[in-house]
């Protein structure tokens, strides 16, 4: 048994985590290879706009997928919970501490993983793997599920920040 020191209200504790989706990167690279091989097999169709334009669109989609869906960076602390995707940190979702009603760690099954940013009117899923995952219940009813390397540490940082905030309810 170990005991932690009593939380200092003046302390500013922030959790940062990054999860890289290597299956997504590998799948996208295989898809890109498939597109290139398909172009080579077409024998002289490279100059045909009917073929080239969809190919370029597919290539742009693959590039965008690599740049945005390859990794998830999450930050939890007194400034709330922020999710950034990909190399450039975009798309980005930020949730202030007073917007979060409840934070918990759930066990995400493999068939519930979105492997990308999945947005619906009631849910936001940013999951790239199964297993322990942070789930935020927002005050507006939205459910946010995010893959974080150490979800318990992220939830603990949110709760510590909430406890230190004078006017915040319990997360």
């Amino acid at each position, binding site marked *: 048994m170990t*005991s932690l*020191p*009593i939380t200092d209200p003046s302390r500013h504790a922030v959790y940062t985590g990054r999860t*890289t989706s290597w299956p997504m990167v590998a799948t996208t690279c295989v898809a890109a290879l498939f597109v290139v091989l398909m172009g080579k097999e077409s024998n002289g169709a490279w100059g045909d706009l009917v073929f080239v334009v969809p190919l370029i669109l597919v290539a742009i989609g693959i590039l965008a997928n690599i740049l945005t869906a390859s990794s998830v960076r999450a*930050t939890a602390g007194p400034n709330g919970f*922020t999710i950034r995707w990909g190399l450039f940190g975009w798309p980005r979702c930020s949730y202030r501490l007073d917007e979060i009603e409840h934070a918990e760690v759930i066990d995400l099954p493999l068939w519930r993983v979105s492997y990308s940013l999945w947005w619906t009117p009631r849910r936001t899923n940013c999951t790239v793997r199964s297993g322990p995952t942070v789930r935020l219940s927002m005050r507006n009813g939205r459910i946010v599920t995010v893959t974080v390397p150490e*979800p318990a540490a992220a939830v603990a940082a949110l709760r510590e920040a909430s406890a230190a905030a004078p006017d915040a309810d319990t997360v």
Partner: protein
Amino acid sequence: MPVPGPPMLEENSSRALAGLVAQGTGRHALAARCVVSNGPPTPQAYGIDTSFRDPSSNNVRTQRVPHRKALTRGWPEPRRPLTNCVYGASINGTMRWTIDLTSRERLQDQIVACVRRGVASGELPVGEQLPPAAELGTALSVDRNTVLAAYRQLRDDGVLEFRRGRGARVVSEAPALSSVTEAAQKLIATAREHGLGTNDLIRIIKELT
């Protein structure tokens, strides 16, 4: 030949952490650490050390909560770290930053200390990428240039390296903390001789720093 005891494997992240809040019984959990034992296959072999504040004494206590699946399914003795049971992505780049905005110590130095602690504890292995300065500055409520100054100081000390397009990465392992531990043990022994307790020591250190 001495018979070694059952090995204990402590993980910071694993599937068993999923039961943290479910097992937290509504208390204010401050931190949690998953403990997986390779000893006898008892339900307590899979557990979560949950720290919470005791409302009666206002102290922080830690309690090991058995994992719910271990209780219901009777998990056998673990053969490998449960982290490997997570499918779909690699787990990397996790770090806890703690700074004191009211401290007399410069914010830049506090960030440097955070990185050094992370490297020393293994949270930041060699090759690990640190968060971008702007993101970390926003999260810590400090200026981006303060984080950049801390990163530059660590680069000058040989802890980090900057690469175009790859951000700041850890390049060297921190020296072992054994010397600090030895000095702390000497300090504690000296304090005991003078009749000082733990709280007195902490107060003196806070006053000095």
